[in-house]
Structure formats: structure tokens, C-alpha cells
């Protein structure tokens, strides 16, 4: 590459300019993120937990709903039996249940956030770009939803539509999109008056094309930060629903349910609370560190 530069006839000034590699905004952000120790640790630990939750159950001698009939009792960790973290009060392997519960919790977190992302970004981008009456109508609706106590709303939805795994993340997603819509709308409003959007419009781009090709890529950064901060909130909300008995149903399980079960026998068997609680809080910590790190990386104000 250098040789071609040297061969160019444009002289020294251009040569040195060509040697400076172009760095995109994302590369810049990535470099900054890598220097943030908490965010990197968060990312790595999250990756480990996700892999363990996704693949771990395949390599364990016990499944999450399998009862060890020789020991229908809470067993301390025992490597000979393959109960590496012991069992719960009716003899189910705690490690298998924790990993499986992690699968469910993470899945609810990610899927619900994805639902919120889809609705929020669409509403926000349309409101911000189209403006006028559409904007007023959509934002008035968001304002209205804001004054409804959302946890109440999720609970009402769960009661009305029954406890169903799919409905759960749809219900959570349906109430978590509001902030996303506001953020995206604000960003879109500032983007709308930029020259490149004007150019796209002048060259005949349709409204959906401009929104998807030009607006969305530019709000992605802010949205990503918000996504990493929403996932832990959703995981918490799910655990809270499970705590109230409105979450996932037996024998399926989630971290929230395991914690709730463990709390019931906290005095005699604290292990059944501590292990799932440790997994969950570690995950929440990591998401928060990562989210904070991403925000600093994408919006460097020398914090």
C-alpha cells in the first residue's frame, strides 16, 4: 500500500495524508471502549454467562426438570453425583436449573428489549421525521402511556392474557418502548435538518427509504446504549413478576423464580438463594458496566 502511495504523482502532502488510515466513528468508539476496564470485564463475563446458559445444559449429567429420585432433598454440592452445585429441595440439580433459568431470563431480556426496540425506534423515527400532526399524535400517546404505572400495566396484561412465555416478553416490550421512542425522536429531529438528509430528499428518496437508510444508521449509537441498559431492567422486571407468581411456570424456571424459591428456604438452605442470585446480579452488573462504557465511548465528553 505504501509503495502505491509513493508512486502517486501528487507529491508529499497527499502521501502523508494517505498514510493516515480513516477511522470510522464505530472504530473510534471501539478503541475507547477497550480502554474502559469495567466495560471490557463486563463484556467478557456476559459472554461467558451467555455461553454457559446456552450450551452448558447440554454437557451436564442432569436436566433442569429431572428429579434425582435417590436424593429427594436439598443436597450439598457433590461431584460424585454430578450435582456440582447441589440440588434444590425436591432433588433437582441446581446448576442445571440455574443455567436453564439464565437461558430463560436472558431470552426474555433480549426478546422483550427487541420488541421495545422495534416499536420505539419506528415510532420515534416516524414522529421525528414526518413531524406535524403525526408527531403530535404519537408523542401525546407516549405522554399518556408515561403517566400509567407501567408495572401495574404489565401485571394487568399478565393476568388478562394468562401466563405465557411469549406474551410475557411481548407485554414487557409493549411498555418498555416509550423512552426509546423519545430518545430516537429527539435524535431524528436534529438529523432531519442536516444537509445529507436534504440531499437524499432532493434526489427523490422516499420517506421510508430516508428513514431506514439515512436516519436509522445515525441513531444506532444512542439506541445501542439504551438497549444495553434496558436488558437488565427487563430481567429485573421478569424476576419481579416471577416473585409475585406471575412469571414463568413450573417446571420451567428463570433466575427470578429460582431466587424466589431459594428465598423461601433461606434459613435452612441459603445456597439455593445465593447461587441464582449471584448469577443474576453478576449479569445485571455487567450489563450496566457495559452500558455506561458504551455511553462514554460513543459520547466522549471526558467523563
Amino acid at each position: 500500500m505504501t509503495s502505491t502511495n509513493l508512486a502517486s504523482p501528487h507529491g508529499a502532502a497527499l502521501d502523508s495524508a494517505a498514510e493516515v488510515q480513516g477511522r470510522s466513528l464505530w472504530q473510534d468508539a471501539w478503541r475507547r471502549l477497550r480502554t474502559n476496564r469495567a466495560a471490557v470485564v463486563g463484556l467478557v463475563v456476559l459472554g461467558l454467562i451467555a455461553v454457559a446458559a446456552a450450551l452448558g445444559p447440554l454437557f451436564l449429567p442432569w436436566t433442569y426438570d429431572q428429579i434425582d429420585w435417590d436424593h429427594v432433598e436439598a443436597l450439598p454440592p457433590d461431584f460424585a453425583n454430578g450435582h456440582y452445585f447441589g440440588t434444590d429441595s425436591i432433588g433437582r440439580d441446581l446448576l442445571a436449573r440455574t443455567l436453564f433459568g439464565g437461558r430463560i431470563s436472558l431470552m426474555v431480556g433480549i426478546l422483550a428489549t427487541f420488541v421495545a426496540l422495534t416499536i420505539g425506534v419506528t415510532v420515534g423515527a416516524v414522529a421525528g421525521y414526518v413531524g406535524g400532526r403525526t408527531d403530535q399524535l404519537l408523542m401525546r400517546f407516549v405522554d399518556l402511556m408515561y403517566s400509567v404505572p407501567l408495572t401495574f400495566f404489565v401485571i394487568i396484561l399478565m393476568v388478562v392474557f394468562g401466563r405465557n412465555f411469549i406474551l410475557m416478553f411481548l407485554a414487557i416490550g409493549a411498555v418498555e418502548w416509550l423512552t426509546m421512542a423519545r430518545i430516537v425522536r429527539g435524535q431524528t429531529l436534529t438529523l432531519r435538518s442536516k444537509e445529507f438528509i436534504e440531499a437524499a430528499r432532493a434526489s427523490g428518496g422516499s420517506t421510508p427509504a430516508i428513514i431506514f437508510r439515512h436516519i436509522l444508521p445515525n441513531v444506532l449509537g444512542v439506541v445501542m446504549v439504551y438497549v444495553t441498559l434496558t436488558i437488565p431492567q427487563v430481567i429485573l422486571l421478569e424476576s419481579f413478576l416471577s416473585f409475585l407468581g406471575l412469571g414463568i411456570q413450573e417446571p420451567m424456571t428463570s433466575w427470578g423464580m429460582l431466587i424466589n424459591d431459594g428465598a423461601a428456604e433461606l434459613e435452612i438452605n441459603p445456597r439455593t438463594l445465593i447461587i441464582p442470585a449471584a448469577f443474576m446480579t453478576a449479569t445485571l452488573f455487567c450489563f450496566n458496566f457495559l452500558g455506561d462504557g458504551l455511553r462514554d465511548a460513543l459520547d466522549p465528553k471526558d467523563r
Partner: protein
Amino acid sequence: MWSYFARRVVIGIPTLWAVITVCFFLMRLTPGGPFDAEAPVPPEVLANLRARYHLDDPLWRQYVDYIINLLQGDFGPSFKYHDFSITTLIAQGLPVSMQNGAAALLLAILIGVPLGIFAALAQNTRRDYIISAGAMTGIVIPNFIMGQVLILVFGVWLKDSVLHLPAGGWNDGALPNRILPVFCLAVPYIAYLVRITRGSMIEVLRANYVRTARAKGLPFRLVVLRHALKSALMPVVTFLGPATAFLLTGSMVVETIFQIPGIGRYFVQGALNRDYTLVMAVTILSAGLVIVMNLIVDLIYSFLDPRVRYDERAP
């Protein structure tokens, strides 16, 4: 300015009405009714029950009746606690929830805001890291885990010591019964307040007018307290508006764990029992409080920041 608030109040009423309407129809669309959970009831009895609660009226009729009653301050009869009107239940539960909520709010402000300022002034030092890490912990650890652990420590392990606190119950609001639930309610809010205060204080301390104040030679303490604090509190106030509404209407988790007869626990039981009127009453109350609190937040803004003025015409 007052015309602005009049306008806001006028907007608030249809908002509340929309919330009531959506909730009402959502609850009535439910497959299964409030009398399903009980042992199979003979059809005649069920018909009588439905007639007593006007559930066999046409839906629009029920809706109109409900709104009319609501305007008179009557939330209707409870479907589950026969012989109780919802208004009575709320009148019993709301003061309990509000007292706990107010205490928790006060605690959160008194601890959270000073800690946040303290951390901001020592940005990127060990003191800052310790406070920030503590705040993160407070946010990440769910309320219901902390509640259980607190019960275990103070209610069980320390049973025979001076520090013993009751593990639950209300006991007509005796002080020892309040300590754990209030603390448990306050912790997440302390954590959020620390984070918000710290963030906005750091931002404000970089503002030009703060630099000017320092350049004039004012003592740093004075600059922080007199110049920076006011505008640093803006995001705090924004957060506190809805937070106050939620705290005052009671935490479902904390009231369930500590068995406190507040409206948060009523809501949970109502939802599980499909006690429509109870669930709706709590939802309407909370929505109304959120609307009122947001209004108050706007009012406080204009005191904190002279640039915020409401008498101008919106562009």
C-alpha cells in the same frame, strides 16, 4: 404562568380518563371472571352473583355506571372482600403506604443527594469509585432479595440481640416494624439519586458560569452550594416527580415481603384474585398521582432555573 398550569390540568383530565377507559375494558375482556377461582358455583348462584355486581348489564352500561360512581368518589364494591367497598379498603391502605413512602423518600433524598455531590466533587478518586460502586450495587440488587436478606439478618440471626427487628407485619405502625421496609424501599432510590446527582453535578461544574464564579475568587464551597447546586438539582427533580408517585402508592414487593397492609399489597392480591375494581382503583390512583407530581415538577423547575418560563407561547 398560571394559564400554563391551567392548560396542563385541562390536559391531565382526559389523560386520566383515557387510563380509566383502557383499564376498564382491558379488565372486562379477561377470559374468566372474579368468581372462577372459588369452588364450582351452581349456575343460579353465579347468575345471582353476577346480577349483584351488575356484571350482566351491557358493557357500556357498566362503564357509564362506573364513571358516574367514580365522579362521586365511589370505586365500587370489592369482588373478593365481600361487604367491603373499595373506597374503604383504599382508605385503610393508602395512609400506610403513603407514610412508608414519604419516609423512604425523605431518607433517599437526605442520603442520596449529598453522597452524589460528594462523589462529583471527588471525581475519579477512590472516594468517587467507592460511592459509585455502592450506588451500582444498590441498583442491581433486586428489592426482594434484599428484603429477604434483611429479614434473615435482623429478624432471625439477631433475634436475641438489641438489633432485633420484627421480620414482618405492621403492628399498627410501631416504629420497629417500619424500619426494615422503609430502608428496603429507600435503597434503590438512594442509588439512583447518587448516580443522577453525581452526573449532573459534574456537568454543571464545567459550565462557564461556574468557572466565572470561581475566577471571581469565591470560595469553592460557596460556588458549589450557591451556584452549581440549583441547576444540578434539575435532573434530580425530574426523577423525583414520578418516583414520589410510585413510592407513595406503595411498593408491591416490599409490602408483600413485609406483610404490610398497604395498597401495593392490595394490588397484588387484587390482580391474582381478579378483583377488577380493586386493581382499577389502585391503577387510577397511581396514574392520578403521577400526573399531579409531574405538574409539581414543572412548578419546581421554574424556581430552580430562571430560564424556564411558562408564559411564553409555544413555538
